[in-house]
């Protein structure tokens, strides 16, 4: 198991190299003059040239990439073209807020969706199943920004229960968490339901029932544990992508997360900032995936035996 974890962590190195290579070259292929974008429409041409020179943007792409990778090898994510601050500091000053939103959003989704998924599966075609599946469908189909604005109009403008934006205090967390959680919840509910439906038709469940195990134990001890693998996968993938920032939710609620920073950096053609964000996301994503794989072993002992 330890060997497996170490091997997976070492695999992060080629992932980071591959990701940085792709992003760097895509950014350099995109049209647009970085200095002009940063200095704006009214900056004189001498200022544009001076800034491009200072940022080293007049050098060939390969030299710039080499310089970047040298820095990266020393643990330096570079300096943002736009702000002149260290990219690591920039991303890390926003990451706690992104983590906070992702964590509570997922918790909200998981706590509600797994029980609903189980109930829907065990009472297939009942009223509660139909209602929850309609809601799951609506949840998947509702755009985040629309739901966010509706919640703001309802709970912030009219009822004044929660602030419309910002990240101060628990009250500011409620509406973005509901907005973000709803989409994830819908996915998890549907996955839980279909996975449970598959499992409860298995022979060992029938055997358990035949042996007289009470139905509660059958569902929670025998069926759920076996049905959890795909559910955990979905949760892991969604959590991983949420760590990359939920751009629309962040924009609607003025949440100062990494997603907005990334989008603004792309608009500004701020290559070091974009690269820094993407590298940190890819590391986070890989680690979440690793955690999911470790969890598999915990949930299913058969998988654990394969790691040895």
């Amino acid at each position, binding site marked *: 198991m330890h060997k497996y974890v170490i091997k997976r962590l070492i695999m992060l190195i080629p992932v980071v190299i591959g990701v940085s290579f792709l992003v760097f070259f895509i950014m350099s292929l995109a049209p647009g003059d970085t200095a002009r974008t940063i200095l704006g429409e009214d900056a004189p041409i001498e200022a544009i040239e001076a800034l491009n020179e200072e940022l080293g943007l007049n050098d060939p792409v390969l030299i710039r990439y080499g310089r970047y990778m040298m820095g990266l090898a020393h643990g330096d994510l570079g300096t943002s073209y736009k702000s002149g601050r260290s990219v690591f500091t920039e991303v890390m000053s926003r990451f706690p807020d992104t983590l906070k939103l992702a964590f509570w959003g997922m918790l909200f989704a998981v706590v509600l969706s797994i029980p609903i998924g189980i109930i829907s599966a065990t009472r297939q075609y009942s009223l509660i199943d139909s209602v929850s599946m309609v809601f799951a469908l609506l949840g998947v189909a509702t755009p985040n920004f629309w739901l966010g604005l509706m919640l703001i109009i309802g709970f912030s403008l009219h009822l004044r229960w929660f602030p419309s934006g910002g990240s101060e205090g628990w009250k500011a967390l409620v509406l973005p968490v509901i907005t973000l959680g709803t989409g994830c919840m819908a996915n998890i509910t549907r996955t839980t339901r279909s996975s449970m439906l598959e499992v409860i038709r298995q022979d060992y469940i029938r055997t358990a029932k035949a042996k007289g195990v009470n139905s509660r134990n059958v569902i929670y001890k025998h069926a759920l544990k076996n049905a959890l693998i795909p559910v955990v996968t979905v949760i892991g993938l969604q959590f991983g992508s949420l760590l990359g920032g939920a751009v629309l939710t962040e924009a609607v609620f003025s949440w100062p997360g990494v997603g907005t920073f990334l989008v603004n950096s792309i608009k500004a*053609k701020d290559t070091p900032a974009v690269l820094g964000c993407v590298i940190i996301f890819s590391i986070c994503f890989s680690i979440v995936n690793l955690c999911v794989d470790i969890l598999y072993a*915990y949930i299913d002992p058969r998988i654990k035996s394969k790691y040895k």
Partner: protein
Amino acid sequence: MKKALCTILAGAMAVSLLAGCGGGGADSGKGEGGAAGGSQVINIGINTDVSSLDPHNHNDTASAYATRHIYSNLVRLTDNNEFVGDLAEKWEFVDDVTVEFTLKEGVKFHDGSTLTAEDVKYSLESQKESPKVGHLVSMVDSVEVKDDTHFVIHMNTPSNALISSLNHSGCAIFSKAHVEKLLAEGKKIEDEPMGTGPYKFENWTPGASFTLVKNPDYFDSQRMAQNDKLVFKVISEDSARTIALENGELDLLIDVPFTDAGKIRDNDKLALDEYVSTHVDYFTVNETKPPFDNVKVRQALSHAINKEDVVIAAINGEGKAFDNYIGEAAIGYYDVVTKYDYDVEKAKALLEEAGYGDGFTFNCYVSNAKRANSATVIQANLAELGITMNIEQMEASTFYEKTGNSEHDSCIAGWVANAEPDNTYRPLFTSGNAGAGGNRSFYMNPEVDKLVDDAAVNSDKAAVQKDYETVLKTLSEDAVWVPLFAQTGLIARNADLQGVNPSPIQMHDFYSVHY
């Protein structure tokens, strides 16, 4: 194994939770303001974040909201477009390239130290090294300190732009001792911004907000802050920004979405202040490409476009159709241009005369939704003349590059004039700036170049005015642009809030705002 795993997972969750609780606690600024008195905190909504708190490291409006309040400049611009001393008591041109300045006595930095001419010398000379705002003082050759309150600026060339540049947020005056101390500690200016301005820096949460607190020892009692704290909140989403004003989370909103202006006017608890801004949007063609090299074609386009419709489509009617090349409130504006009425018949006749009676096809580049709306109206107007205009919308950075490289046939752009007319006329209309320099019309007229050059250095104000009037007449006769509209500046606020004093060039001060 199971236990170990449980511990790891529980640990990971705890870390997540702690990280979650730890973020965002840095900023305060709850709306304690209000008519009740006591501590007055003014919450101001803006749509973009500060890029830097170092005046030498930015050239954008949002960052200037912060640095203009923390730092002071040698001169400032009054509401009547006059330059008066801010830190400077007075100044005098000894000759074309030498200016003697006297500083006000006893001006204190936020740390209690006294401003001296050495601080000015240090600030202006280090500004020259900045790629972002160094160009503003490119005419400054050296700063010679006479004593604590007297210094001389030697210029390398005569320039009328010196005084207006000194009013720019990039020409803020630092404390030499403070900056040197920061640099020695390996810190940056923006880590601890400190100046002589009406507010002291309190904190900045990137992406969320920044807070300034009143400086009770500010040197100019006439402009002493009338509130205790300014909290600028970054809300990028338009509807969310208006809602935050409606539900009282904001007291003041600078970047009012045009589509919400009506809603704000109808709300008794809110007020909408309109001001004449120097923002002009224009449609222009690339004169290096036929048929746009023909002045008759350009004049035909000027007659063919219904600007009133453009005003409705692009900015929801929050502005007026415009014929000039520089905003009404700007220094350097003169009402001397040839006006082209909306007259389809005249346009057709001009096209016939030019030999394009059957029309032609061309592209129009735009960089945002507002300008795409303008383009749609123009497209429909030109279709009446048999002209096909294909609209291509792209990211701003792509737009700058493509129009700079002359890839466009036509484009729609905008301009906000600042306090120095040369900063408008030179980039937009001179040959040396054709393309990436800002002259996206690729208009090259040696006569205009000469007039702009003369106006930049001539110390005779009447002659400068004559130069600019001739430039404006020439531009309009040559139909270089189709000026579309002058955008009305909008500031929305709580109806009880007083003292809002908008600046036409969008360099608003908020020291006078109070309940």
